[in-house]
C-alpha cells in the first residue's frame, strides 16, 4: 500500500513538523502540541491525547475554546506519560487541568501514570466511553471513546474559557459523555504505515459493524447495504441505548477515506431517522473529524442537548480543525 510518508518510523514526527509549519497558532515541542500563546492564567487547562492516525483529533483541536494541549502518540498507540506530564504542566494556568481520556486500556494507564507523576498540578480526569458497539462491559475493557471525544473537548473547552473551576469543567465533560452515544461502520479496513497492509480483510460484499477508531475489527459483519440501511442500523443501535428525543447534536463522521459527498448522503438518512423518532437535529457536523487513517466508512455520534450544552457548543472556537463564532 502506498503512503504519503517519508518513513513509517518518522510519520508522526514529520506530520507534527507540518502541523507546526501550517498553524502559527500552535507550538509543537517534544511530541506535545500547545497553544502558541501559552496557558491563560486562571483558566482550567484542557489536555487530551491518544494514538495518532485520528487527525484532526486531537492536535488540530488545540486553540481558544477547545484544548490547551494535545499529546499525539505513535500511530494507534497511546502517548507515553512524559508527553502527558509536559502537556499538563504547560496547560496549567493555575486553575488545574482536565485530562480528557478515551476509554482504552493504553490511554487510561498512560494518563493515570502521568497524573500520578505530576501531583503538583490539580488534575481531574474524564473518561470518554460513548461507543454503543461495545456491549456487556463486565466482560470487556468497557465502552470505547470515539466521536464523543470531540463533543467533550468542544463543550468543556467552552466552559473552561468562561472561567469555570476545574470541578465544573469536569462535571460538564462527564455530562457530555453521559449524553452521547456512537456507532461506527467500516467499508474497508485501514492501512497503518508500519504494517503496510490492511489490518483486516473485508470482502467486497460485507461491512464491518461496530468498529472503533483503531482499525480494529468490529463486533460483527453484515452484507453491504444502501446508505439508508447502514445509517438505520447505526441509529437503531444508538436509539436502543439512549432513546432519541428532543434536541440533538449529531455528527456524521468519516473514517478518513470516505468522500464528503457520501457523508452527506448518510447525514440525510440520519436526519430523516431522527425526525421519524420525533426528535430534532438542531446542531450537526458532517466531515472527517475522528478518523482511522484511510479507512472507508462512517461513525455517527449523537448527543442529547440541553440549554447549557447548546450554549457551550455554540460558543466561539478557533482551532485548525474546528472554528466558528469568534
Amino acid at each position, binding site marked *: 500500500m502506498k503512503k504519503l510518508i517519508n518513513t513509517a518510523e518518522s510519520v508522526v514526527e514529520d506530520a507534527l513538523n507540518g502541523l507546526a509549519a501550517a498553524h502559527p497558532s500552535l507550538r509543537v515541542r517534544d511530541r506535545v502540541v500547545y497553544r502558541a500563546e501559552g496557558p491563560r492564567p486562571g483558566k482550567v487547562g484542557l489536555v487530551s491525547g491518544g494514538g495518532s492516525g485520528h487527525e484532526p483529533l486531537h492536535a488540530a483541536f488545540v486553540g481558544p475554546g477547545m484544548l490547551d494541549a494535545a499529546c499525539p502518540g*505513535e500511530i494507534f498507540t*497511546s502517548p*507515553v506519560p*512524559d508527553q502527558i506530564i509536559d502537556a499538563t504542566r504547560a496547560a496549567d494556568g493555575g486553575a488545574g487541568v482536565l485530562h480528557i481520556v478515551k476509554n482504552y*486500556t493504553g490511554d487510561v494507564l*498512560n494518563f493515570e501514570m502521568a497524573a500520578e507523576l505530576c501531583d503538583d498540578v490539580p488534575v481531574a480526569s474524564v473518561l470518554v466511553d460513548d461507543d454503543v458497539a461495545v*456491549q456487556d462491559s463486565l*466482560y470487556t475493557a468497557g465502552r470505547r471513546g470515539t466521536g464523543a471525544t470531540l463533543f467533550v473537548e468542544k463543550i468543556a473547552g467552552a466552559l473552561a474559557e468562561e472561567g469555570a473551576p476545574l470541578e465544573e469543567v469536569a462535571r460538564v465533560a462527564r455530562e457530555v459523555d453521559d449524553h452521547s452515544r456512537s456507532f461506527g461502520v467500516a467499508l474497508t479496513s485501514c492501512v497503518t504505515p508500519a504494517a503496510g497492509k490492511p489490518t*483486516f480483510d473485508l470482502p467486497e460484499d460485507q461491512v464491518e459493524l461496530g468498529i472503533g477508531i483503531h482499525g480494529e*475489527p468490529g463486533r460483527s459483519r453484515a452484507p453491504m447495504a444502501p446508505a439508508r440501511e447502514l445509517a438505520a442500523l447505526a441509529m437503531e443501535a444508538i436509539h436502543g441505548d439512549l432513546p432519541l428525543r428532543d434536541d440533538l447534536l449529531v455528527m456524521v463522521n468519516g473514517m478518513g477515506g470516505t468522500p464528503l459527498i457520501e457523508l452527506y448522503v448518510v447525514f440525510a438518512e440520519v436526519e430523516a431517522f431522527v425526525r421519524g423518532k420525533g426528535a430534532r437535529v438542531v446542531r450537526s457536523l458532517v466531515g472527517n473529524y475522528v478518523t482511522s487513517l484511510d479507512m472507508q466508512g462512517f461513525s455517527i455520534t449523537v448527543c442529547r442537548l440541553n440549554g447549557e450544552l447548546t450554549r457551550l457548543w455554540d460558543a466561539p472556537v478557533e482551532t485548525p480543525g474546528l472554528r466558528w463564532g469568534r
Partner: protein
Amino acid sequence: MAGMLDTDLFLAWTEGAARAVRLHRDRLTGLDAAIGDADHGTNLDRGFTEVGKALTEWPPTSPAQVLVSAGTTLIRRVGGASGPLYGSLFRQLGKSLDTPVTLAGFAAAFESGVQAVERLGKAAQGDKTMIDALAPAARALTQAVQEGADEHKAFERAARAAEEGAKATIPLRARKGRASYLGERSIGHEDPGAASAALIMAALAEAAA
C-alpha cells in the same frame, strides 16, 4: 558463581528480548491485527530498542538497575497498553530484587512483578492477556526453585510455561484490552501480549543457557 544472577545476565536478557522482539515483530503485529490494532510488534520493537540505548548510555551496575531502567524506558517510550504493563513488570521486578540476586530471590521478585501487572491492568488469568503467559511463568519459576532446580532449568521451565500459556489463549474469549471489543470473535487467535511475554521469557532462558 553458580546460582548467582549477575548484571551481565540481565543485560543479556534485555538484549535477547530486543532481538527476539525484532525478529518476531511482524508476527506480533499480525496477531494484533487479527484482534487488535496492529501495533504490538512495532510498539515492543521501539521499546526494547530504546531499552538497549538507555542501558548503553547509562551503564547499570546492578541487576536491579538493569531491570528498573528497562522498565522505566518501556513506560517512557512504548505507550499503548503494553508500555505501562511491561514497564511495571520490569520496574517492580527490579525494585524487588535483593543483592546479590539468588534464583529464589528472582522468583519471588518476578511474582511481585506479575502481581504489579495484574493490579495495574485489573486482569486475571483467563482474560486472554499477557497475564496468561506471565502468571504461569511465575508459578513455574517458583516451583522450580522449590524443587531445587538451577537457573538454567528454572528459566527453561518458566519459558515453557509462558509458551504454553500463550498458546492456551487461542481458544479464550478476551475480557481485557482491545481484543475484548470483539467478543466471541476474539476466540481462535493467540493474544499478542501473551505471545510477546513468551518470547521475553524464552530470551531469559537463552541468556542463562
